[in-house]
């Protein structure tokens, strides 16, 4: 039996299509000193995803916070530690610039709250060109 897909529609930030397992941060995500681009991990103290590798994941988060050094997430691309796609609820210049540098399919401003709908471990297809995010829930 095929599993039902949940579809979210949003705004294209960066085009292209990619899929993978979701890594969802319920908390806002911070850059600059609080991301280690070589290891591809959040280093923010007390963050629920501290030290969890972003590599190969569809990185889902609500909003950015903090410094313009958020763009460093984009630089994970140069260390091969980058997520395969990004999906976020609402961003600003700093997420847009990071997505541009990372150059992976990225969708924001969706019709459903991605942090509510998507859970870590769900399988997610991100179509950046169409601004469509398809979610297959993980099996219980």
């Amino acid at each position, binding site marked *: 039996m095929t599993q039902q897909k949940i579809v979210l529609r949003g705004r294209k930030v960066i085009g292209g299509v990619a899929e993978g397992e979701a890594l969802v941060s319920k908390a806002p995500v911070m850059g*600059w000193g609080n991301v280690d681009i070589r290891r591809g991990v959040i*280093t*923010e103290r007390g963050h629920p995803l501290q030290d969890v590798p972003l590599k190969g994941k569809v990185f889902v988060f609500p909003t950015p*916070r*903090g*410094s313009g050094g958020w763009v460093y997430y984009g630089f994970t691309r140069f260390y091969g530690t980058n997520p395969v796609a990004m999906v976020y609820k609402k961003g600003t*210049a700093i997420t847009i*610039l990071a997505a541009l540098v990372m150059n992976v399919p990225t969708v924001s401003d969706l019709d459903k709250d991605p942090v509510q709908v998507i859970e870590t471990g769900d399988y997610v297809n991100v179509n950046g060109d169409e601004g469509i995010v398809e979610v297959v829930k993980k099996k219980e």
Partner: protein
Amino acid sequence: MYITSEEEKILKGERGYLAQKCMTFLTKYGDAAGAKRLINIDGTVDLHPGKMSSWYPDTAISYEEIVELASKGEKFQVPTFANKPESPAFIVDGWEDCGCWPQNDPEYHKECMTRLIPLMQMGMFPTLSCDYYLVSSYVPTVCQHCAWGESSAIPWANAILGARTNYDGCFEAAYLHKIPEYDMHLDENRVATRLVECRTKLLNDMHYDLFGWVVGEAVGVEVPAITGIGKPTTTQLVKMNAELNTGGQVRMYHIPGFTPEAHDVEDAFKGYRYQEKFSIDQSNLKAVYDKINYASDEDVDFVYLGCPHYNLTEVHKVAMLLKGKRCKANLWVMTNPWTFKVAEMMGDKEVIKRAGGVLLSGSCPGMMKGVMPPASVMATDSAKQSYYITGFVHPRKLQVWYGTTEECVEAAVTGKWAGKWRRW
């Protein structure tokens, strides 16, 4: 994104390869941002001198290319100011006494300063600070479009000055005097959507520092209208702005009757109703205070003051607190290069030096990715510096105390942390 025929020509290379690279970046950025067009910058630009003066490595303008442009006599098209140098980050003044290699190496310093020359030839003013806007002697006026960077600077431009900027200051914007028109450049995105009522008096600089974080965390990327915070000083506003963009990503806010785009609460919301309301009391400030205090060991090795870079009154205050005393812990007091020179004239640099501290300019431990005197326990009066520095040194554990400026100076003198939360 729509581009004009003039922009199209630049994109095709008619104004040269480097202008073409800059336009390529601006159009890619505009597309990703969902901007309808580029807008002409009629305000100011600020950029981080160094490898991060371009955001996007694929079209970044290299040092050699900047030298090439400068040698042809090419100029930035708008008044352009220098933020802190980055990649490499370096201390601009006082480096001789900082005690950290390679910062205290004259050759390293000379090399770093030399690399600023082509940018200055193109017209970049070497303000070299995160709060360059306090000393730039030229600021944008209401409604002027800008391209700025830096946590405390973005809300300074938007909220305090009424100018319009996103977090995107860069070489390309200064050279072509254009930037994608979206978010803070558009009226509709500057209207308040959240109401924040401060239910406690904010009495000192630390209270405003904490309050900024609380509001940032509460509203995230939304625009708040803030009431009940009295008449903050310049020091307090700078601190609050830095934390609004650390606890959250607040680019714009209104203090009705105080900031230029809202004479009263109704005006801040432009006739709409707030979508959410937050009441802030002492318990909210205490919760952030507890989070930012990240230490248990009372023996303090290093005290860092100057995030954002201290203004003259802050440097002077520290000098007065230190007069006739001697520090047991290492102490750095960081300011911008302009303030450094005036503080030197004032005698404050000498007072700090006699007490065993160092007055510096142009950088910070965060900017230098954790460069500081050897420390396992530090103290600071900035929630922002506290919260980032542990990330920079991670997985090495660094304990950080947080408190008032006075408590930090006392810790530098005694080598012991004695700060505590005081109800008021």
